[in-house]
């Protein structure tokens, strides 16, 4: 089910300055994403996937061009407005899980809701539901160092999903997982995409991920060289 356009990237250029020289990581990228997509940015290492994902996530600014996310031009957002956009509408999943080690699974998932100033009861309901999605209600009181890699990444998915964001950005989410756990996580995300209509954008070169994608945007040397809608 494809909906309205929620991300539009136009003429995007990103230069990294390295001393006197500069390196062009993105070179005139144009693309748009509609709500409910399950899309991957794919391509070899160094092709610019993470760079593009970070700009869409308002974590980085483009050198030229613009990226409009949910009606907001990320280039013109202040630091606080960028934070608000991430807080309300974006969920992140990282290759290395990045759970906060001193907090329990429950508290890690609860954190985004604290930022949204949800009431205790609302938080409790949402956290328990999110843990149910990823099948970890039994581990609510565990600390991250007591979890396996697969479990940790499921907690990260719950943390990204708990506030029901419009868009989830996932950078190499399966790179540290074995095949079984990778499939497990991907099935879960696909289910959430279909049930909640959450838009997922991946940056990956993992074939296992690519197999699940509904659309594949191929990057090479900072340019989009192919854009394929699958199944």
């Amino acid at each position, binding site marked *: 089910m494809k909906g309205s356009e929620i991300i539009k990237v136009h003429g995007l250029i990103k230069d990294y300055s390295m001393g006197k020289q500069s390196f062009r990581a993105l070179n005139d990228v144009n693309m748009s994403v509609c709500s409910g997509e399950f899309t991957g940015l794919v391509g070899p290492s160094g092709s610019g996937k*993470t760079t593009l994902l*970070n700009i869409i*996530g308002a*974590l*980085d600014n483009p050198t030229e061009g613009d990226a409009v996310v949910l009606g907001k031009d990320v280039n013109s957002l202040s*630091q*606080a407005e960028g*934070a*608000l*956009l*991430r*807080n*309300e509408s*974006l969920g*992140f999943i*990282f*290759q*290395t899980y*990045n*759970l*906060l080690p*001193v*907090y329990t699974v429950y*508290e890690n998932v*609860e*954190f*985004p809701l*604290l*930022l949204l100033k949800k009431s205790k009861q609302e938080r409790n309901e949402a956290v328990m539901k999110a843990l149910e999605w990823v099948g970890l209600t039994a581990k609510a009181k565990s600390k991250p160092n007591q979890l396996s890699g697969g479990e940790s990444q499921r907690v990260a998915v719950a*943390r990204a999903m708990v506030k029901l964001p419009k868009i989830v950005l996932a*950078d190499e989410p399966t790179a540290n997982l074995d095949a079984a756990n990778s499939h497990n996580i991907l099935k879960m995300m696909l289910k959430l995409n279909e049930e909640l209509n959450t838009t997922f954008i991946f940056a990956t070169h993992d074939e296992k991920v690519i197999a699940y994608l509904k659309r594949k945007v191929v990057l090479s040397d900072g340019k989009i060289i192919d854009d394929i809608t699958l199944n």
Partner: protein
Amino acid sequence: MIKFLLVGLLRDRHRSLFPVTVVSLGVILTTLLYSFMSGMMNDLIDSTSRFDSGHVKIMTSAYHELENQLPNDLALTSTGSLLASLKKSYPGYDWTARIKFAGLLDVPDENGETKSQSPVFGLGVDLLDKSSHEVERLNLRKALIRGRLPEKPGEVLLSDKFARKLALGLNHKVTLVSTSSGGAMAVQNFILCGTVEFGITAMDNGAMIADLSDIRFALEMPDGAGEILGFNKSKFYSSENAGKTAADFNGKFFNPQDKFSPLMLTLEDQNGMGEYIQYADSMGFIIVGIFLIAMSAVLLNAGLMSGIRRYGEVGVRLAMGEPKGHIYKTLIYESVLIGILGSFIGTSIGLLIGYYFQQVGFDISGSLRNSSIMMSNVLRARISLTSFYIGFFPGLIATTLGTALSGIQIFKRQTAQLFKELET
């Protein structure tokens, strides 16, 4: 949110226990160091005032000019009426007259022939008057090694070392040969009733302590005195109070035209004590300052380290949509909390240990054996008002500053760069 942060602080020992311990230790050391410095200073002031300068001292200006020569021919006369008006005008002080003198001490044998002889420095103080505090002030009871304190005219004390050098036994007759205030030779016999040791090297090498009236008689200075000392009844020297008293007294009694009119000097005006106090103050300031800088460097480093350790956490919180400013603020609040806690614990422990060494002190007589400074052989700390904050505020400020700087380090970086570090 606040609960969330406090929980994190408590669970993460690297964020709470470790920095609190570092801050406490630094603050303990600073507080103690300062307390010992002021204890030493206080001790020096204390013994100098007791044995020599008083908190304030009155002499004729003529006597003052030649003070080192103990010029008793230039001493104050009619001290009785002066003392009476001092007691009336400045009741906050305890006033007492003393005569310092020098001469030869002659030890005769059974036939009255000289057995041994030695130069002597002496102090005529009010020992026999019941209302006098001189016995306590000079700590004579504690200083007594052999015999007893003088109980009637004609009895004297000698420093123990000196008496042994002269092979003098108790109740032996000694003869003081000195110069009278009129310039004639003065000879007077005394009986040695006891020996003393003050633990102050300068006083223990060859001193004689006699009753004031005996010395007045011997030196032919009835109602005269080389000096009148004033001691603040609070027992503590107050620079401000002494200065005011001296200014007031000199305004009323001192006449610059008259070299024999009485002149009042404060402890600081005498023997370069003022400079010494200033010097010691600035030394103390420098030592504590160096120490503070070292402590701040350590704390700053600890702050930086913990900041770097928390790159990951900061990155995640940013990604979750927490504004940078809010994260920075919470980091600062945390460090203020840590700083207050550590400084509080450190100051408390520092004061406790300091208080112990104020009451008990420790013996450093070994290292002072050859010193001629008027300093007692027991080193004591002294807790003053400053001791309460000398460690506290630097501890707090250094902790906060460390975090503030490490926080800036984090935020100077591009947000996306923090995530690069997350990924590796």
